[in-house]
């Protein structure tokens, strides 16, 4: 009887080494994973003195950039296989195009925009607060039909041209809202 028991005990003994090896590998894998997706960000400001400051701000030369989506520039929607949590399918815009107004000057290509912004970045203005020369502050205004990607592209080019202060102006509504406004006028 005693001999039988000893034999059984020997059967249930397991070699844990491979399992521990695997678990350690899993831990190392998780530790090596950075807990973030590879993303970047572009810093910008909003006008902080709107409706708050009662004192008069000293005047400073600014550069307005208007992004305009022309008629028919929205492009055609091409549905993708990606589905959002609200069961909506993601789309891509094919043939989407925009142009830009840098002050009064119209620019219709990305290289043209880069060239113009680099030129504008060379023109320094006096900052009345710090009394130092710096690049003009930029205000980006987006028209109807302009997408987030169009705006980030402008911010990216402005940062490349060494502009320091980038702010956003008010939007002009969505394409649908603009169509509704035009309909009312008629």
């Amino acid at each position, binding site marked *: 009887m005693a001999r039988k028991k000893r034999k059984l005990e020997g059967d249930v003994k397991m070699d*844990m080494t491979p*399992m*521990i090896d695997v*678990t*350690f590998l*899993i*831990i190392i894998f*998780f530790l090596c994973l950075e*807990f*973030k997706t*590879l*993303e*970047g*960000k*572009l*810093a*910008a*400001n*909003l*006008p*902080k*003195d*709107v409706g*708050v*400051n009662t004192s008069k701000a000293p005047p400073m030369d600014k550069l307005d950039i208007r*992004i305009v989506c022309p008629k028919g520039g929205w492009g055609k929607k091409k549905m993708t296989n*990606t589905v*959002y*949590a*609200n069961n*909506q399918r*993601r*789309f*891509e*815009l094919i043939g*989407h*195009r*925009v142009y830009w107004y840098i002050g009064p000057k119209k620019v219709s290509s*990305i290289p043209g925009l*880069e060239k113009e912004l680099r030129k504008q970045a060379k023109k320094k203005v006096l900052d009345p*607060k710090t009394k130092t020369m710096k690049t003009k502050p930029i205000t980006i205004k*987006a028209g*109807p039909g*302009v*997408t*987030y*990607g169009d*705006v*980030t*592209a402008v911010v*990216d*080019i402005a*940062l490349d041209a060494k502009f320091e202060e980038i702010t*956003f102006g*008010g*939007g002009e*509504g*969505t*394409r649908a*809202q603009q169509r509704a406004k035009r309909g009312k006028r008629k």
Partner: protein
Amino acid sequence: MSRRSRAVSNQTDMDMTPMIDCIFQLIIFFFLIIDLQNKELEPLVLPKAIHAIPDEPEPGRKRPILNVRQDGTVVYRTKVFWQPSDGENYSKLLKLLDYFANTLMVKKMDPDLKRVLPQDALLIRADRWTEMHHIAKIMELCGNQKILIWKVELAVGEPKDADSKKKPSK
């Protein structure tokens, strides 16, 4: 002699159970952490940019992040705070921005305006093809007297070859 060697082999026998327990606990912990991180970031296709600063969040800190889907739906931690069917009713979103400005963000006295303003930036994540108007609306709400968030960051994807001089495609 043989008796001695048996005694030595008995000493090296170790109970692995607590260690395996610990390892499993660690694995569960990592799984949970990954799940929490994904809650903040909606699966969106971000536009690419060359001059983006890498987004390096402080571990364990709640961040003010707004995700904007293609139709303008605003999502924070998987909860919807505005959707097109809400129309001009932005009350939920205003409450959320108020929470960001007055609870999550560090505030500091602005010497020019002589007012206490939030110093942290609001991270806006939107799909490459989201109409800018939706983001502009969020920015407009940030200017509310109770909120006054003035720093924003636009989330972008880093190009695969960040050092290349290739410009964003149009």
